[in-house]
């Protein structure tokens, strides 16, 4: 075969491939793509009276590839698991006296902003979804907001933690993930409750949008609780030596430290504190300390170190806890959710907080539609504003801007090589070890083990 014939053959193959892909009905590609057909059938759904609806459509520009692919895979699995529960266990969404199933349409936005707007445009105008779930990250969530606002579609945010999203005046955006400013509130509450004598706090964190927002909330909450901020300094991204900063921090003699930014600097922070022998009663590091790799890298030096998380496998939120605090309960138990999640992703995979918050968002939308008895954007948005409930993910409540205020972060502490949820009390799987062992004790093999 000469080159010319080969090239022509390749061209024909490529052309046929394109045509086949273009002509393919989405439902034949994957089971969840059945939603496409449903979308076409119910193209005018939002304009119909609620009683005429045969499906409620959730659209999602998911991050299934690109830099947020891991978070995206978890979110899609969480949404499918929650849909499974709503449709098959709960029986569907009660709307106009009938039970209406939820259906999920998602496309891959490749973690790229250009794709987010074009896919939301399609979901809003062609698929005519009733609600759009945001992609992962504050940037991508912001990218989609003007399109959903212009199309008057509810936009639910389970991936963008920046408080700034809710300072822009968007009407139809509602958050499920806790805002960045809430990350250390639980940690501070815990220390206040455990050790009323502790007064001095040091803040040392990465110079990034996320870490700054987290510490803005921590600073404000610490002052509200009567703590004194004796040290506050940032360090640049990609830092390789924190000894000058930590030496200055040591001189301020804090009772406890809140810090971090990403995994690498969090690990460095902990390691160099050990090198310099800086002992405090508590150390909480965002983004790093909750990861198994943190303990694998630091082994015993990580004992007693804490970190905030939106949700961790093992939390004790239950119908009984909901009753105790006077909240409505909805959704599967944690174990049921894990089983549904594994079924949805088709493999042995433990859901993380990305999956849990996306699933909780489905439950929030379900309750809001039932409360409003409508799928129209304004009544559902108003219902979401009034809604408070608890699920396996924890509490749910939003303020007037749509920002999440009802969900409490959980604080995780490394105890004897295990991640133990130590705060809030309604979610805890163990008592906090406070003060944590000193680095000298840890070097001799002492573990952080809570007393009975």
């Amino acid at each position: 075969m000469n080159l010319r014939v080969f090239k022509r053959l390749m061209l024909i193959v490529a052309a046929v491939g394109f045509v086949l892909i273009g002509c393919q009905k989405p439902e034949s590609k994957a089971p969840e793509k059945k939603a496409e057909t449903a979308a076409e059938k119910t193209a005018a759904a939002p304009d119909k009276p609620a009683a005429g609806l045969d499906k409620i459509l959730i659209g999602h520009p998911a991050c299934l590839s690109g830099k947020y692919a891991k978070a995206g895979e978890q979110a899609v699995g969480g949404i499918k698991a929650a849909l499974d529960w709503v449709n098959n266990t709960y029986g569907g969404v009660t709307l106009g006296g009938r039970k209406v199933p939820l259906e999920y349409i998602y496309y891959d936005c490749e973690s790229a902003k250009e794709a987010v707007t074009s896919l939301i445009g399609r979901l809003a105008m062609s698929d005519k979804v009733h609600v759009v779930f945001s992609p992962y990250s504050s940037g991508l969530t912001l990218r989609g907001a003007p399109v959903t606002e212009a199309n008057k579609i509810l936009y639910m945010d389970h991936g963008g933690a920046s408080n700034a999203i809710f300072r822009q005046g968007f009407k139809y955006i509602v958050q499920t993930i806790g805002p960045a400013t809430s990350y250390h509130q639980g940690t501070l509450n815990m220390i206040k409750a455990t050790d009323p004598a502790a007064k001095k706090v040091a803040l040392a964190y990465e110079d990034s949008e996320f870490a700054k927002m987290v510490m803005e909330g921590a600073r404000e909450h610490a002052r509200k609780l009567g703590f004194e901020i004796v040290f506050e300094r940032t360090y640049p991204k990609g830092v390789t030596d924190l000894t000058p900063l930590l030496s200055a921090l040591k001189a301020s003699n804090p009772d406890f430290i809140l810090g971090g930014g990403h995994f690498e600097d969090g690990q460095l922070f902990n390691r160099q504190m050990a090198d310099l022998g800086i002992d405090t009663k508590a150390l909480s590091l965002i983004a790093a300390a909750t990861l198994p790799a943190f303990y694998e890298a630091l082994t015993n030096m990580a004992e007693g170190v804490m970190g905030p998380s939106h949700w961790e496998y093992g939390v004790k939120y239950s119908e009984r806890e909901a009753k105790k605090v006077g909240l409505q309960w909805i959704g599967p138990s944690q174990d049921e959710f894990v089983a549904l999640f594994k079924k949805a992703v088709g493999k042995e995979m433990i859901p993380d907080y990305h999956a849990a918050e996306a699933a909780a968002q489905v439950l929030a939308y379900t309750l809001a539609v039932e409360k409003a008895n409508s799928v129209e954007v304004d009544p559902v948005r108003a219902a979401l504003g009034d809604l408070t409930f608890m699920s396996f993910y924890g509490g749910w409540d939003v303020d007037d801007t749509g920002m999440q205020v009802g969900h409490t972060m959980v604080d995780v502490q490394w105890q004897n090589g295990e991640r133990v949820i130590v705060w809030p009390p309604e979610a805890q799987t163990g008592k906090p070890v406070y003060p944590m062992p000193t680095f000298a004790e840890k070097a001799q093999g002492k573990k952080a083990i809570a007393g009975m």
Partner: protein
Amino acid sequence: MNRVTQYYPILPVLLAYAILFIVGQTVSGTWQLVATLLFYCAMGQAFNIFLGMTGYVDFGYVAFMGMGTYGMALAITRLAHLPGLGAVVIVIGFGLALLMATLLSLAVGAVALRLRGAYFAIATIGVNEGFRFLIEGARIWNGAEGMIFTAQLVNIVGSERASRLMTYWADVMVLAIAVLAAAVTLFYMRNRVGYALTALREDEDAAKVMGINVTKYKIIAFITSACFAGLVGAASWALKTPYVFPPEVFEIHYTVEAIIIVMLGGAGTLLGPIVGGLIYGISKYYLSIFLPGLQLLVFAPIIIVIIVMFPEGVVGVLKNRTRNTALGRFII
């Protein structure tokens, strides 16, 4: 060829953009897709002025888009509180975007354009990363925190207009920038600048011997390309998405996309960036819909096949095939 007929190749460009615009306006749910395609076409069109016409590969190209984004962001955030300026702020923003992209291109060009080929490419690789770390490390323009300015935009033009600006007019501006970039490309092609650039692209030493000031023409192409990149950044990133985070606007991924678009369509051709932008954008869009999560596995072989089939780009091959035909005068 008289003065009018030599500009005939602009007609298929205008036709292509007109069709895109009409499709976006008339087919429900396609405007945001058209906006994305326009972004890719405009980015390719701007990059083609330098890559296509000189043969130099600039890996720091996205930095100019980033500077344009910052130019618009600074105008909006710093002037939003001034009463009575209204939409003038947007005009100032475009002016600032142009100025900042020009200054950066002058600084980069003065150093890097003394180098050739692979050395030039290597010298430019660090531009976007270096600039990003400068902004973050020195805490310039809010440093790593970036800026979110939807609220300020609403203050300036009002809620309804801001919404329309972010979802429609910003895209129309990108269309205008793409058309303007194509017009400038054609103007260069038909003038001394284009002849000089063609000569240096084919053999820089020979061009030099013939008395062409190659550095001057390279800088002209470099600055022109950077200016259009700055305008694309200002419209498509700052106005369409009123926020700027350094890691997002200095992401090398966009430079790679621009290179693929230009090579797919045909480097140095007028119609190439449009064809490349459309093939690239449409393939990505439909594959992400029909094969979510798996599209890159299919997309990469498609790109390889097209590059193998059309080593000079789709328009490059088409141009050779239609040479000396009636159609040939429209395809360059």
